[in-house]
């Protein structure tokens, strides 16, 4: 009998990862294909056909499909969205261009700010005005609105964002406008800000709504096409989309607010990391995913990745906070560091060895790939250091050239006075320090101490660099899950259905109308609940979390606070205050002696397990005694040692090894330094304990 299957599809910039999970045997099958940027559904279908024929799987057995994609993020970066117009309250068409007036970099006179997604001529105004408390000062001029829309349509606009001042307090005019446009221009895509992001602060709300409008036509076309093609090959199971917050939703919601999907791929990776960590009983960890171009770092606390409520799309400077278009979405919080296997080493004007952020990527790739790259990269250095087996790289699919690696690295010798061995170790050290430095500051910003975390490493580079990064951060334990290469796609299959909703309130705690507050939370919960039940089933009983963005009166920033459950009454004032004060202390160490508390936005998060909860990943208990396949001389920290090389798939559960050791699998190589110990635990993770110095 055919087993039930779940199918995960993760479209990245370069590769599309596919993973099929067999529910009864707890086995998974995976396949990687090149992404087809012009029509990503093509690559998906080719890959699925290949995966199913290789593993002899049955399309009809697929019970659900979960999908993540970088398509929309890339559309924003490459400005490939639809021609988009903006209609605002009279007097405020320039909000998008006025921004918040600050710079993300202080010393660059030629700073490049993010380009608005449309020219000023496509930003028009209409008479209407709400006041801050939601009362109508000037009614909406519907005739004027239609005239403006006509101008935009005549100019070729396919999608319109409507952002009126204070619409978070009263969405009536935006809704009227949407209805009028739907009547007169049925083909026009319309996004209204009270629907996309009902939050105070007009620039950020406008930016969010415009980004949504910009990718909406693309999302509709793409998701319709993908659903259709999957049906055509016989997969009729429901298609779920991964949101940036690590939750799933159904296609209609994804088409309505595609902006929520921007970080779906990385979110899946962080979920997978948390999942693997939990299996080894680890709740607090840093998840380091080091690929070819960048490394991504996420903090996992109490078994869950941290969530952020702001995001930046399409940064001008990829690794610089503040250089992108602000987007109000809830998203798994991660930082991106310009450090990957393809990162290029150079000598800068100060005579220092620098690595990255420029990368040789996959094309032309590191010099040792012999695909046309000649600049020295991290991978070239690692090869010279003995970290890789040049004859069996990437599961034996590639042969690396030590000569080309050395030649590329030797180009740095004249400027540094160092030989290729010193330089290779230098490149390795510098890239490790730059990852550790970024992690150190990121962790401090969140009020944590790195030493309390374990480091969970994935990606092609994570296991090679992990122990040295951990040592620099004072971290003692490293976790290396099996098959790190497909870990991210597996995250799709462990995700719950989750919907977040928010609304601005902007009231002092002491002046709250508690009935109105309760009603506002209920309205958000009902709205989110409808999406969750439509995603899963009417019987789904989602867990409800209430949160609020709160601050001490007079402050400019809010702390997102998890609140006790409702219903709320005047008696809730004390517990709400206590929840905020405790959250504030967690983030900032202590609290100011200010009596008044303001509640700016309210939020709900509804989630329900999808597809039967945790994956019961089967672990092959194969392998006889741990016997090294060979020995190799490799450089570890200050010493060069001959180290046994193990094939990870041949290591039985419970294996214990002492460093130095090299453990290889097809997608990555784990380095265990001298004096560290490694063991394969019951769930197949390798746990490395570093020496305590």
């Amino acid at each position, binding site marked *: 009998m055919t087993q039930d299957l779940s199918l995960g599809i993760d479209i990245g910039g370069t590769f599309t990862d596919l993973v099929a999970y067999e529910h009864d045997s707890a086995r998974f099958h995976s396949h990687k294909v090149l992404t087809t940027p012009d029509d990503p559904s093509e690559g998906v279908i080719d890959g699925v056909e290949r995966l199913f024929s290789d593993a002899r799987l049955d399309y009809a057995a697929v019970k659900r499909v979960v999908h993540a994609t970088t398509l929309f993020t890339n559309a924003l970066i490459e400005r490939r969205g639809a021609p988009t117009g903006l209609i605002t309250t009279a007097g405020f068409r320039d909000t998008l261009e*006025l921004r918040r007036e600050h710079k993300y970099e202080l010393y660059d*006179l030629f700073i490049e700010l993010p380009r608005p997604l449309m020219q000023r001529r496509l930003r028009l105004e209409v008479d209407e005005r709400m006041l*801050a408390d939601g009362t109508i000062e000037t009614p909406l001029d519907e005739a004027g609105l239609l005239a403006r829309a006509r101008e935009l349509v005549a100019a070729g606009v396919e999608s319109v964002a409507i952002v009126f001042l204070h619409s978070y307090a009263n969405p009536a005019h935006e809704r009227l406008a949407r209805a009028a446009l739907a009547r007169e221009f049925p083909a026009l895509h319309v996004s209204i800000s009270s629907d996309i992001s009902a939050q105070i602060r007009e620039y950020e709300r406008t930016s969010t709504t415009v980004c949504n409008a910009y990718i909406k036509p693309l999302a509709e076309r793409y998701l319709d096409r993908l659903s259709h093609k999957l049906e055509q090959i016989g997969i009729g199971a429901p298609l779920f989309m991964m949101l940036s917050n690590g939750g799933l939703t159904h296609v209609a919601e994804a088409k309505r607010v595609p902006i929520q999907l921007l970080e779906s791929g990385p979110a899946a990776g962080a979920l997978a990391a948390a999942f693997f960590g939990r299996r080894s009983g680890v709740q607090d960890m840093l998840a380091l995913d080091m690929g070819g171009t960048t490394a991504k770092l996420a903090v996992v606390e109490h078994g869950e990745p941290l969530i952020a409520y702001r995001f930046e799309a399409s940064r001008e400077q990829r690794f610089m906070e503040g250089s992108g278009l602000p987007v109000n979405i809830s998203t798994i919080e991660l930082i991106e560091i310009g450090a990957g296997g393809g990162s290029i080493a150079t000598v800068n004007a*100060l005579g*220092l060895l620098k690595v990255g952020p420029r990368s040789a990527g996959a094309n032309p790739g590191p010099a040792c790939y012999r695909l046309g790259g000649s600049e020295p990269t991290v991978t070239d250095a690692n090869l010279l250091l003995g970290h890789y087996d040049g004859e069996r790289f990437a599961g034996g699919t590639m042969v690396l050239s030590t000569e080309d690696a050395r030649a590329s690295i030797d180009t740095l010798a004249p400027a540094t006075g160092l030989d290729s061995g*010193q330089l290779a170790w230098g490149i390795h050290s510098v890239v490790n320090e730059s990852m550790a430095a970024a992690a150190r500051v990121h962790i401090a910003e969140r009020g944590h101490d790195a030493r309390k975390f374990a480091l969970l490493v994935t990606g092609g580079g994570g296991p090679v660099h992990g122990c040295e990064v951990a040592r620099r951060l004072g971290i003692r334990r490293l976790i290396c899950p099996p098959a790190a290469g497909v870990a991210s796609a597996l995250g799709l299959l462990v995700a719950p259905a989750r919907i977040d909703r928010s609304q601005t309130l902007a009231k002092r705690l002491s002046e709250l109308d508690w009935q109105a507050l309760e009603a506002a939370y209920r309205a958000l919960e009902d709205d989110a609940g409808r999406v969750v039940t439509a995603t899963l089933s009417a019987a789904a009983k989602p867990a409800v979390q209430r949160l609020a963005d709160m601050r001490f009166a007079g402050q400019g920033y809010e702390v997102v606070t998890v609140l006790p459950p409702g219903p709320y009454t005047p008696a809730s004032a004390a517990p709400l205050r206590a929840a905020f004060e405790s959250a504030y202390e967690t983030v900032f160490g202590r609290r100011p*002696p200010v009596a008044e508390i303001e509640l700016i936005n309210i939020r709900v998060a509804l989630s329900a397990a999808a597809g039967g909860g945790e994956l019961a990943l089967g672990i092959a208990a194969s392998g006889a005694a741990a016997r090294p396949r060979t020995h190799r001389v490799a450089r570890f920290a200050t010493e060069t040692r001959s180290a046994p090389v193990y094939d990870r798939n041949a290591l039985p559960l419970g294996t214990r090894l002492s460093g130095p050791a090299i453990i290889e699998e097809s997608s990555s190589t784990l380095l265990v330094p001298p004096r560290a110990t490694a063991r394969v635990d019951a769930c197949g993770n390798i746990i490395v304990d570093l020496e305590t110095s």
Partner: protein
Amino acid sequence: MATSERFDPVILEVLWTRLISIVDEAAAALVRTSFSTVVRESNDFACVLTDARGYSLVQATDSIPSFIGTVPRTIREFLAEYPADTLCPGDIIATNDIWLGTGHLPDVTVAKPIFLDTTLVGFAGSVAHAPDIGGRIRSADSREVFEEGLQIPPLKVVRGGVLDDTFLRILKKNVRVPDQVVGDLFAQFGALDLMERQVLALMHEHGLATLTELAQEIQGRSEQAMRAAIAAVPDGKYAQEVVTDGFDQPIRLKLELNVCGDEIAIDFTGTDPQVARAINVAMCYTYAYTAYGVKAALCPEVPNNEGALRPIRIVAPAGCILNSRPPAAGGARAVVGHFLPMMVLLALSRALPERVVAGVGSPLWCVNYAGTRADGKSLAGMFFMNGGYGASARRDGYSVLSWPSNISSTPVEMVEQLAPLKFVHRRLRTGTGGSGRHRGGNGQEILIESRAAGPLVVSFLAERTRPEAAAPGIAGGEAGAPGAVLINGAPVDPKRQHLVEPGDRIELRTPGGGGFGPAVERPAGAIADDTLDGYVARLA
């Protein structure tokens, strides 16, 4: 480049990266634990590590330009007051002296000696803008520093880990929000402790007995890079004069920038004398903002440290408004000091027009309001706005950008939630950027109607409202439009307080940035786009 025996290009890169991440980590901790909103939102603070003599190795990446070089200089003043042999582990010295510190009283500089075993190896230093320091609130009207709040001379406020109770009690008695002020001081102490712990860990890990050699290496390489950048500027003297609105009359600032080989000497001789208002600039602040201009134009990529500053010599005659003498007040020093980096850029534009930007519609503008709510409670608040940025060889100037400081505007929706004000419009002030091959950035215009129950007292920070103070163009570009403040349609003196009745309308028009290159060279396509997008049509 030569490689020292001790620090090859790898070790040095690793150590330097680590040191920068240590001060950045301390900065993150300071931001997290301070109450001051200017610290949080405007990065109005710095964290610095110096060697044992008080020469800086690294400064936190995001600290604003007003602190360039100030903390190490203050630490050297501390050493003069408390020589090394009088310092013990756990000591902390503090001051807010405007001449030894940063030029105004709210900035409190603190430093802690770092001992490796019994040897003094360096200092952890920090400066942050306190939530209050007593005195008159945010007033440019103060005539002497004594009106501006409590003055703390260099003082060992913590001895061997024990806080001086006398100091603490005097401080608390002199400020409006004592718990917040003391809280922020402790936040700074926390940042010092963190730097101390991390530096000692680094020295231990790498077997360093002192920071001296490392400091010399970092400073030496930075100095070499700065010298190389200066050497690429044609030798010569470049003079620059600007006029600011001033208070009762305009203020003239004069500069001569002398490039000689790989050094730059800047002399402000000829600048107007100090005034009996709080807009005087102490030499430390003059130095910081002038050096910022040089560094941003010539060598922006070199991290902030002593070495990068060595080839830059800056002098101003004692008693001029750029080198004030006691008891000159300095609370609003930014309205003069923010002109300085622009003067450097304008001077350099004659030699290297492609390396700089045209005049910026800075400094920052601000509206302060106070009054009474309908329920009788008092209300007060402020919000910020900026003018247009200068054009450059590469592009048109951006509309409204904070420079050389970095203060965000306040969202209209937030102001309307908090204050009885209604914004009729906040929009680009089109046609105000100076024309040129690349046009200057537009300013903005904001029309506000009072919806208060009674009169509001309103005051402003506003500059470049006189025609002669407009932001200049460079390389043949034209100046941006000057700014203006109007009440009920009539121009008013922005330096005075105004009483605004319910229904009255306040209009703020911030200045445009200067243009780059002759306007006749502007490509036809760009002109057509400007017309379609309405960037050049003058509204008012």
